[in-house]
């Protein structure tokens, strides 16, 4: 598990009530029961932790990243784009 993935999982764990064993790279946020308000908070925590800006609108039905693995990959890409 990469550092980024580990951090992403620990952020999700801290912001939403969800079974720890469900937090796998292939898990989709909607499938593991994370509410939309929690997603907003998770995105904020990711932005704060990695000092990045994630384009995200809660009104859009589809996220650019749906699984935990995709989130970690998107974060890595945004962090790389910074430097």
């Amino acid at each position, binding site marked *: 598990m990469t550092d980024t993935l580990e951090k992403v999982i620990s952020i999700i764990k801290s912001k939403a009530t969800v079974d720890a064993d469900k937090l796998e790279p292939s898990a989709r946020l909607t499938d593991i029961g994370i*509410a*939309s*308000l929690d997603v*907003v908070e998770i*995105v*904020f925590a990711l932005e704060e932790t990695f000092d990045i800006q994630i384009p*995200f*609108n*809660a*009104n*859009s*039905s589809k996220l650019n990243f749906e699984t935990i693995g995709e989130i970690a990959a998107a974060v890595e890409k945004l962090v790389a784009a910074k430097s």
Partner: protein
Amino acid sequence: MNRVVVTGLGVVSAIGISLSTFWESLSEGRPGIGPITGIPTERLNVKVAAEARDYNSVAHFDAKRLGLMDRVSQLAVVASRQAIGQAGIDFTKDEDGLGPIAERVATIIGVGVGGMETTDESYKRLYGTPQQRIHPFTVPRLMLNAPASHITMEHGLMGPAFVIASACASATHAVGQAFHMVRSGAVPIAVTGGAEACIHFGPIKSWEAMRVLASDVCRPFSKGRSGLTLGEGAAVLVLETLDGARRRGARILAEIIGFGMSSDARDITAPDVGGAARAISGAVRDSGLSLDAFDYINAHGTGTAVNDVTETRALRRVFGERAGRLMVSSSKSMFGHCLGAAGALEAVATCLALSEGVAPPTINYLERDPDCDLDYVPNVARQAPLRAALSNSFAFGGLNAVLAFRRFEGDLAAS
């Protein structure tokens, strides 16, 4: 119980700062949303809003008064001048030997967040600069009740006066409370409405952080909608008893016939079909009219993914089969979401729709969303003999308020 009529209306909004311009814009579907001009936008992600661009403070107030008033109070007072001017009431008159009527006029105003210009500027000075001092009038400018207080001082209104805060339903709760007080006889006249002026850096960043602002413009009920657009403004309605209005030969613009309220008691942001439906059916029941009598709904219609579906389902739940023949439109597509003022601006829009026989459109509508399957009067206003209408407001925090209005047909409407 008294019948309650509307005899004065006043507005300050992105689509007009007079009643006539406001109605022209509404009925022609003119957009009020545009690039933000009042504050620097380089640090904003969302750079559009519905500002009251035609409002110029120095044209309405002298420098001494402006020093005491946040923009939210200014907009409220300007709207109140129009409404009270139109109603043409002489508040000094002693009609029943109880003293001048001004002593019994209620002033009840809805405000969501209040003096944001003052809060933003003062705190920026303290946190963002080495300055230790802020203006001595910071407190009277930013306090939430200031818009109501300034209206009372402007017109010498000495009856019950206060502000109601229920976020995006504030003004609807205020008008509803005023309606109850006039209907019960607690007061003969009420000056009511709402005001908000939050197109400022801090508040916009707060809304950005919620990720619910539209990326382009507000497109209520449309496929491709991406959220709400913030607006600012104020609207004031003068309510009085039908008997009082007749006695002084006032022109009656519309009648308020019902008010429904509810709380979702569920979620701090997500709306609830049950809560919305309870407020809607409460207003219909209070009106004493049958569901068939309602032709038009001025929707809460924020343009968020969730609100518009929830509101559609709530209308379907209450109106059943009849929901299909309702005209439902969102004026927020034109003047934005004015938060604490929204319900008042929309109450004015509803009164005008009834009196003019025109359902204003939902503009920026692109195409049908399968989950929003009512008649939203897309893009073009529609002439129709509207008999009764509802104005919906559903706030964050799950606080819902719905007003029922009826076209005033003189004695024909007496029941």
